[in-house]
């Protein structure tokens, strides 16, 4: 190696190589910091309770906007709105959907079928709107037994539109209460006259009668998805049983057939035998993608022609990480999006090349995910199970692919990047002067040899160190950095400088003041209750002459440790501080002062924080430590003191206290740290309400809301507060260690 590097040009080559490695590595490793910030999260809060939100759908219209339906239940009445939302999250308009007189149903589904036509359904009316710049304009409405029973939450697409030759064919499937499904074919002739559609309902709505009482054809199994073929002549339907069938749109000849015999009359293929179909998606162009749990298959009309052949196998596309329950398809770049059942995982499948482009996790703890796709964006909405709020987010595709957090690849890139950078520097030094290069080389050799000699030791240390770096060092550094970012799970990171701090110190000033006050109170309280009473009790116990009672006392003092701390807090909350039903203190109060005089210790803002401080009375706590220390005081000192005539109290301050000063300092430091960090107590008693918020609790709050940027900000503040104390503590520990050497 040394000889190799003697030649200057070889060094140059090495320099270039390392430089490249350094640059590429660092760039790749840090690349995700430059996230594409075009994408907006919109949090819509509906008035009223979440369970009333049912008719929600969204669709993308080619002009670059999403149409979404939302339900507001204000004052008990449900109103339906259609909003047009752009990619930046801006709301173009919001139109209320009004039902025609005589329409007793509720809107169930709204969708845009062409560039400027929107259709809405209630259970017995059909509405046709024109999509204008600032709203929807109602063009036509018809009554009829439309029976569009749509439940967007279940992800079942119950109908399809086929627009051709100025005709909108509406196909709907009904999943009735039983397991039978029927297909109804509606044909509606529309005539285009300039800007307005004049629709004339063809009174011959084709319905095929099964038997005299049934007007619909029943399929015998639940339909999961269906599509219309290119030639507008056939319908492909996929059932939950894993079978797919192709029908003529006229449903010719099916009326007289027993549903169980369809398979003989109708072309059928089996996609998955006995495996449940979880979702299906039509790509708008003759193919139906079927999800059998994790596996994705494609069915086209041609497949049905081959179904008679024994050798037919469904066309397998790809396997996902999680079973797909909801899908949507982007025709512009042939991407199939699959969303998992909990709505947390979204996979983008490149169906042409049969591979998964990327998989991202959106948000944990959501339900009712619903999404639709546009040319280059993806809008989804869900209900956050924790806040019960309805949220809508628009992602551009480039954003989605970058939501992937730090990957292993990036870490490795970083490592190589830094090594490359270091080696580059080294080589530059070596290139500059011979003498320097000698010194550098010998040093490098020495380091390298020593490292190599201890290689096995490094292997043994590796697990512990890896853990340390992954969960203690990197997060700390990252938290400091994150506090300057707007970082929330499910959104790309955005640099906002002091924004988080502003939010804390300016917008939430009152809360911060409350936190400050509580922190001071808690630290003071902990300092007192963990030092003064325990020392006092330890002293008293030491003075007891009867040694057997000392043993009894020590036994009793174990009892508080037998119940988990939080359980003890809960006991205080309900059993002692309880109001209505009354806890111990209130029972006594009411017995003395009469009913109705109970005090809301933890409920009343004036008392809450003080009640919390009082918990743990009489604060016997960690007396054992002090007791052990007091025991080591030699008794001769006591006798000497007494001879000089000092009383008990003076003796305590002059002799005992100095002896246990070490322990007192140790406990004090711990008390201050615990005071700043305190959260368990607050959580168990008041959940941060009524004036009892603390730093740590706010951090927890932010984490629950997935607002990691703000959480990091609080953590940084805590570090600043605790820095001095923690350093003092560690210095003490080091001093103690040195005293052993």
């Amino acid at each position, binding site marked *: 190696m040394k000889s190799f590097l003697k030649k200057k040009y070889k060094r140059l080559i090495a320099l270039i190589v390392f430089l490249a490695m350094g640059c590429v590595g660092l760039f790749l490793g840090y690349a995700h910091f430059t996230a594409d910030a075009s994408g907006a999260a919109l949090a819509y809060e509906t008035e009223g309770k979440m369970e009333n939100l049912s008719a929600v759908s969204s669709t993308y219209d080619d002009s670059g906007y999403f149409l979404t339906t939302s339900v507001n239940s204000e004052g008990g009445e449900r109103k339906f709105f259609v909003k047009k939302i752009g990619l930046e999250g801006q709301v173009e308009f919001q139109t209320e959907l009004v039902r025609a007189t005589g329409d007793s149903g509720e809107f169930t589904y709204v969708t845009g079928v062409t560039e400027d036509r929107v259709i809405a359904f209630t259970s017995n009316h059909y509405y046709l709107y024109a999509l204008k710049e600032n709203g929807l304009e109602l063009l036509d409405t018809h009554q009829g037994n439309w029976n569009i029973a749509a439940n967007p939450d279940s992800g079942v697409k119950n109908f399809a539109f086929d627009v051709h030759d100025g005709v909108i064919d509406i196909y709907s499937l009904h999943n009735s209460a039983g397991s039978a499904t029927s297909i109804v074919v509606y044909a509606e002739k529309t005539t285009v006259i300039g800007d307005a559609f004049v629709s004339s309902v063809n009174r011959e709505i084709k319905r095929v009668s099964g038997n005299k009482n049934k007007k619909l054809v029943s399929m015998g199994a639940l339909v999961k998805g269906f599509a219309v073929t290119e030639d507008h002549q056939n319908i492909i339907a996929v059932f939950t049983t894993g079978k797919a069938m192709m029908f003529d749109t006229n449903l010719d000849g099916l009326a007289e057939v027993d549903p169980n015999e369809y398979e003989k009359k109708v072309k059928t293929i089996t996609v998955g035998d006995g495996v449940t179909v979880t979702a299906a998606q039509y790509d708008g162009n003759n193919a139906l993608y079927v999800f059998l749990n994790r596996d994705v298959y494609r069915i086209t009309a041609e497949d049905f022609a081959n179904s008679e052949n024994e050798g037919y196998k469904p066309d397998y596309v790809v396997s996902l990480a999680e079973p797909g329950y909801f899908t949507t398809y982007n025709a512009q770049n042939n991407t199939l999006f699959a969303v998992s059942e909990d709505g947390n995982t979204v996979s983008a499948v490149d169906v042409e090349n049969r591979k998964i482009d990327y998989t991202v996790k959106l948000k*944990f703890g959501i339900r009712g995910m619903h999404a639709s796709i546009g040319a280059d964006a993806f809008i989804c909405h869900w209900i956050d199970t924790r806040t019960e709020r309805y949220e809508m987010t628009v992602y551009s595709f480039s954003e989605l692919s970058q939501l992937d*957090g*730090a990957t292993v690849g990036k870490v490795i890139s970083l490592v190589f990047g830094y090594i490359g950078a270091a080696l580059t520097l080294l080589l530059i030094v070596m290139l500059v002067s011979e003498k320097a290069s000698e010194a550098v080389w010998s040093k490098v050799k020495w380091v390298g040899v*020593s490292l190599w000699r201890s290689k096995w030791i490094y292997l*043994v*240390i590796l697990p*512990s160190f890896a*853990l*340390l770096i*992954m*969960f*203690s*060092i990197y*997060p*700390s550094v990252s*938290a*400091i950095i*994150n506090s300057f970012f707007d970082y929330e*799970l499910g959104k790309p990171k955005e640099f906002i400088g002091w924004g988080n701090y502003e939010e804390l110190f300016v917008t939430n000033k009152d809360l911060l003041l409350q936190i400050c006050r509580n922190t001071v109170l808690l630290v003071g309280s902990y300092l007192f209750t963990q030092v003064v009473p325990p020392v006092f009790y330890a002293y008293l116990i030491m*003075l*007891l*002459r009867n040694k057997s009672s000392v043993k009894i006392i020590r036994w*009793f*003092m*174990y009892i508080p440790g*037998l*119940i*988990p*701390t*939080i*359980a003890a807090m*809960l*006991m*205080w909350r309900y*059993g002692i501080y309880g109001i209505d*039903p*009354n806890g*111990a203190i209130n*029972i006594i109060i009411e017995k003395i002062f009469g009913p109705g005089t109970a005090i809301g210790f933890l409920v009343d803002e004036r008392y809450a924080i003080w009640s919390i401080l009082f918990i743990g009375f*009489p604060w*016997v706590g960690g007396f*054992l*430590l002090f007791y*052990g220390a007091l025991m080591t005081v030699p008794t001769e000192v*006591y006798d000497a003191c007494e001879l000089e005539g000092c009383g008990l109290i003076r003796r305590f301050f002059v002799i005992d206290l100095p002896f246990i000063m070490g*322990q007192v300092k140790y406990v004090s430091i711990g008390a201050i740290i615990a005071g700043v*960090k305190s959260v*368990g107590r607050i*959580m168990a008693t008041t959940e941060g309400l009524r004036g009892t918020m603390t730093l740590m609790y706010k951090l927890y709050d932010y*984490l*629950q809301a997935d607002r*990691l940027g703000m959480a*990091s900000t609080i953590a*940084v503040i805590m*570090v600043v507060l605790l820095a001095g104390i*923690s350093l003092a503590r*560690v210095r003490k*520990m080091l001093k103690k*260690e040195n005293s*052993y050497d």
Partner: protein
Amino acid sequence: MTNTRKKHKIVRLRRSERLRVQIPISIILAFAIIFTLIPFMLTIMNSIKGHFEITTSIFSFPKLNDIRWDNYAKAFSYVGANIWNSVFIAFVQSAVLVIISAVMAYIFAEVKFFGSNFLFYIYIMVMVMPNELNTSENYAFVNNAGLMNSYWAVWLPGWSAAQASGIFLFRIFFMGQPKSLKEAARIDGASNVQLFAHIVLPMTIPIVVYRFLTGFTGAYNSYLWNTLVLQDEQKMSVITLLMLKSGSVKDNMDQGFGVLYAMYVISGLPLMVVSAISLKFFKGTEFASALKM
């Protein structure tokens, strides 16, 4: 003083041992004990009372003809499985932690290798930073790595955060052990591993057990992180469940507070076992004074 033994000892009490001092001391201590134990006595007594009885007379001893043992049965059905969860989590966490701490402390104490001081100072640095700083990023990591709702989400950050102090403690102990013994072993040709397994470790068994029990108790009582990452009811730790249930059970007049208190009591069972073990193991006050820090 010369060794004089008189037949009749003249008892001269110290000032502190006179009765007029002892009596107030005893009274104060008695009060302290009573007040400390009140919450617990309340819990135990009320855990076998019916709900109505609790709301009307919280202090009274349970009526002997109306002891509701089924409070415990109900409580067990609610939290039983979760107690096992907590025990399992705490056990694994503490056990692995002790192993890591002991091994690493030994390496830093006995084995001389390149960079040992440097690496050790890194551990010390980590001790300075409060581990709350790590919470947000660890949460994001757990979320992205799909470890949400799995025990590893509790263990991994737990091991990482607690190993520093454990290593410190063990290292002090190892360094305090008689050097001559180890030198003799080395002369006889013991390798590092053998030294550790046969000489160093057996001498520190009490500390190991102490550390394990303390770690177990700490992990069992830990609330904040467990609640964040274990949200599935079947997997959550018992403390989280207690918090959840406390809100709902009390509204249910049929079950009421009795079951709630019973839940508190039985959730302390593992801790009682740990206390019993530690009492047997560590007789006397040696440990209190030995851990003067």
